[in-house]
């Protein structure tokens, strides 16, 4: 990881409820710990939690794409990642009272809407560009996403 990536990561952690995160790659290991008072402040605002997906911090689990910056794990299998084309809020439903666009197992094809990303009260319906089956949903409904953040894992088979 270069400095820029680390910097980005710190920014993400800062906004999140994650207390500590370690990422290891061939160049070494980076551990980022968040100050406790910062954490409490964020925790007091539960809706702002960055992602409630399980935190892949334990040693023996593969750091899957639940952490914002992981590209290696994606290469180790054949899944394709659908990433966010913009900063905004991620929604899995057209509106709160409607069913989700996709679930795990949903077959998608180019043009199929997979989610909405809202930026500044502008609601973007995001269409898939690939054909395949959703195998993992990486972001909680109604939570903030960064540019290029992985949203879905797709099995193209």
């Amino acid at each position, binding site marked *: 990881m270069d400095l820029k990536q680390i910097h980005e990561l710190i920014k993400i952690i800062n906004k999140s409820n994650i207390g500590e995160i370690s990422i290891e790659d061939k160049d070494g290991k980076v551990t980022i710990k968040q100050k406790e008072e910062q954490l409490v402040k964020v925790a*007091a*605002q539960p*809706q*702002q939690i960055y992602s409630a997906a399980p935190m892949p911090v334990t040693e023996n689990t593969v750091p899957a794409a639940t952490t914002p910056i992981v590209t290696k794990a994606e290469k180790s299998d054949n899944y394709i990642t659908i990433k966010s*084309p*913009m*900063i*905004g*809020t991620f*929604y899995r439903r057209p*509106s*709160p*009272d409607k069913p989700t666009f996709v679930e795990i197992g949903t077959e998608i094809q*180019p*043009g199929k809407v997979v989610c909405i*990303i*809202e*930026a*500044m*009260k*502008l*609601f*973007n*319906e*995001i*269409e898939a*560009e690939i054909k395949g089956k959703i195998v993992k949903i990486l972001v909680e409904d109604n939570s*903030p996403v960064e540019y290029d953040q992985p949203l879905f894992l797709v099995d193209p088979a």
Partner: protein
Amino acid sequence: MSSISYISHIGEPFIELESVDSTNNYAFDMIQAKLAAHGMVCFAHHQTKGKGQRGKIWATEPNSNITLSVILNTSFLQLHQQFYFNAAMALAVLDFFKNYAGDATSIKWPNDIYWNDRKAGGILIETKVGYHTQAETKNISTTNKSLAVWNWAIVGIGININQTQFNAAVKNAVSLKQITGKEFNVISLAKELCTYIEKRFEQVQKENFTQLLESYNKHLFKRNEEVKLKKKNMAFTCSIKGVNERGELLVDGYAQDSFLWGEVEWQL
């Protein structure tokens, strides 16, 4: 028909509907059915399930107001330029409303139209974001990065015109009739609004982005004034400095100096 010309004017065709659930949904269906054209407007005299933000409902009295959706081709814009488009649409509604209601008209971040401290109109934009096909991508770039493009924007606009009684739940609504004391023909006003949209959209096409942002900031609600905002459960006071090119609200007098929409709420 994949190539779209801009010869057609905004508001042509002008589809007038007696009643529809939501003009934005109607416009979406037109796109889906490949019947949409740049500039097409769907106007409803009665919108039964008008869309507000995320499940909120834009409820208005039938036959009294402007409720319409404009379909615009935005494929020439990059995704990171979206806020300029957003600002242009807010400015178009501002220009229109100000012409009748005067200088007390402003844009409340990000895109509500206010008259003094009261809401006169709202905008809800929905877009379709797709990707260039492989063949197209090859010509454009040699990188393997996919290119997201937004092909269409559906701009839903609601403006209070002749309505004078508002639901008790709506605290601070105002209509043009309440301001001016006059009754208006909503169809001719809606067509007039289209000419304002066209002018502002031209600025987007010409990439007059600096100018758009300047106008937007000039007409920004409560600019350089103390306001109360709420971030999750915490209310705080700050002063509004403006809005930047990404659409973030810039403030003074608080620990954080810029906010994304969704991060803070207004406390009026």
